C-alpha cells in the first residue's frame, strides 16, 4: 500500500471538517501525495417520510448539501496550501456501492469506505470521529470504530 495515497472519507459533519483541516495541515504543499475526498451516499430513510414526494425532496436537498460540502472541503485543503492537482473528489452513489445488497453490512458506510480503500490501493485512510458514548455506539454504530476493528493493510488517522 502507498501511504502517500490518502483516502479522506467525509460527510457534511463538523467531525469531517476537523479531519479535512488536519489532513490539510499535515500534507501542506507536499507534491508527492494524492488525496481523494470520498463521500459515501447515505440518503434519508424512506420510511420516515409520509410520501414519496417529500422523501425525494429531502434526498435532493441532502445531495445538494453534500456537493457543496465537498467543494468546500477541497477549498479547505487548498487554503492550507495543498496543491490542487493532488486533490480529487468522489461521490459514491448508492447504485455504485461495492458488493451485493445481500451482503451483511452492504449499506454500511464503513464497509463501503473499506472497499474503496482496497480498490484504490490507499495506504492512509482519514476519518473524523463523533466521540459517541458506548451506549450510542451499541445502538447506532460508529463508522470510525468499525473501520479500526476491520481494516487491514492501511494506516488509519482518526481525527477527534
Amino acid at each position, binding site marked *: 500500500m502507498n501511504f502517500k495515497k490518502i483516502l479522506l472519507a467525509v460527510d457534511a459533519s463538523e467531525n469531517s471538517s476537523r479531519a479535512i483541516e488536519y489532513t490539510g495541515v499535515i500534507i501542506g504543499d507536499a507534491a508527492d501525495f494524492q488525496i481523494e475526498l470520498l463521500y459515501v451516499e*447515505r*440518503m*434519508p*430513510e424512506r*420510511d*420516515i417520510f*409520509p410520501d414519496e414526494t417529500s422523501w425525494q425532496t429531502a434526498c435532493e436537498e441532502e445531495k445538494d448539501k453534500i456537493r457543496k460540502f465537498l467543494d468546500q472541503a477541497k477549498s479547505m485543503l487548498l487554503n492550507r496550501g495543498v496543491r490542487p492537482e493532488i486533490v480529487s473528489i468522489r461521490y459514491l452513489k448508492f447504485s455504485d456501492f461495492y458488493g451485493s*445488497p445481500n451482503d*451483511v453490512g452492504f*449499506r*454500511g*458506510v*464503513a464497509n463501503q469506505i473499506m472497499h474503496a480503500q482496497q480498490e484504490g490501493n490507499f495506504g492512509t485512510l482519514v476519518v473524523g470521529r463523533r466521540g459517541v*458514548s*458506548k*451506549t*450510542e*455506539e*451499541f*445502538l*447506532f*454504530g*460508529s*463508522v470510525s470504530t*468499525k473501520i479500526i476493528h476491520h481494516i487491514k493493510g492501511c494506516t488509519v488517522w482518526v481525527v477527534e
Partner: protein
Amino acid sequence: MTTSARELLCDLMPSFPVRHSGQIYTDTTQFMNINYGDVIALKERNFLVLRDEAERRFGLEDPKYWVKRCRELNSGKRFILKLVFHEKFEQKIGPLTINCYRSPKKESRILDLIRGDERFMQGKTVLDEAGNPVRILDVISGKSLDNVVEDIDMDHRTYFHEKFPGILEKFIGSCEGIKYMHDNGERHGDVRRDHIYVEYGTGDYRWIDFDYAYESTENPFGLDLFGLGSILLFITGKGVHDAVSLTSSPSGLEFYSSLSPDDFFLIFSHRVINLRKLFPYIPESLNRVLMHFSQGAYITYETIDEMLPDLRQGLKDVSTL
C-alpha cells in the same frame, strides 16, 4: 362525505342498538371523528367500530385514536384496523433520546413479507377511497410475554428449572423471526417484551406492531438487538432486578453494593445484567449472552446471526440442568 350506517347495521347486525348507529366512512383520513357505532367501509368489507385501542403501560392507558377495534359485519369476526397516522416523536432509551417516526407503509410492507408466518401478527392492507393504506389485522387471543412471565407464581429457582427452558426455546424462535426480517432488509423497530403476544391455546409467540421507523444509522439492527437483550434479561431473571427491587431489603442492599459497573446493563445502568451473581444456577453460557449487553462488554452483537448460536448453547445447558 359520510352516510348513516343505520340501514347497513340493521341488515347485517340487527342485534346492534339502533340508537348507537353512526356514519359510514369510506375515507379514514379524519380518524379522530370515527367512533363507536360508525362503520368503516373498505371495498366490499364493512367494519363496525367498537372502540379505540389503548396501550397500557405502568398502569396508565394511552389511547390510540388511529387504531380501532372492529367487528366485520359480513363475517362477524373481530379485527383491529390501523388507520394512517404520521407521527414524529422523541423516544427515550436509557440515557438517550432519539427521533422515532410512525410509518404505515413500513408496517404494510412487513405484513406482506411475513404473511402466513405464525411468528408474527397477520393482516393485510386495503386502500380506502382517499388512498390511505388501512391495515386490517387479525386479533391475537392471548397476553403479552411480560404478563405471562409475571403471572407465574413460583420462586425463581423453580421457575428457572420448570418453566424457563420452554420460554427460552420459544424466545429463540422469536429471535429467528426478527432475523428473518433483518435478512430481508427490514427492522421490527419496537422490540419490547409486551410486543410478543403469547397466543392462548397454541402458546405461540407472535410479534406485533411493526410501524416504528428511525433515521439511518451505521448499525441498522442495533435497536432490535437491544430490545432482544432486554427481553432475554427479563425472562431469565423472571422480572427486572435493579436498584429499586434489590435495595428494599438489607441483604439485597448488601448484594447490590457488591456489584461493579460491569454487572449492569449498558442501556439501563441500574438494571443488573450479570444475573449469575444473583442466581448462581444460571449456566455460564447463557449468562455470557447477557454479558454482551453489559456496561463492561468489549464485544457486542451486531447481528442476530452472532447471538443465535450462543443462545442455542444456553438453551442446551439450561435444558440439561
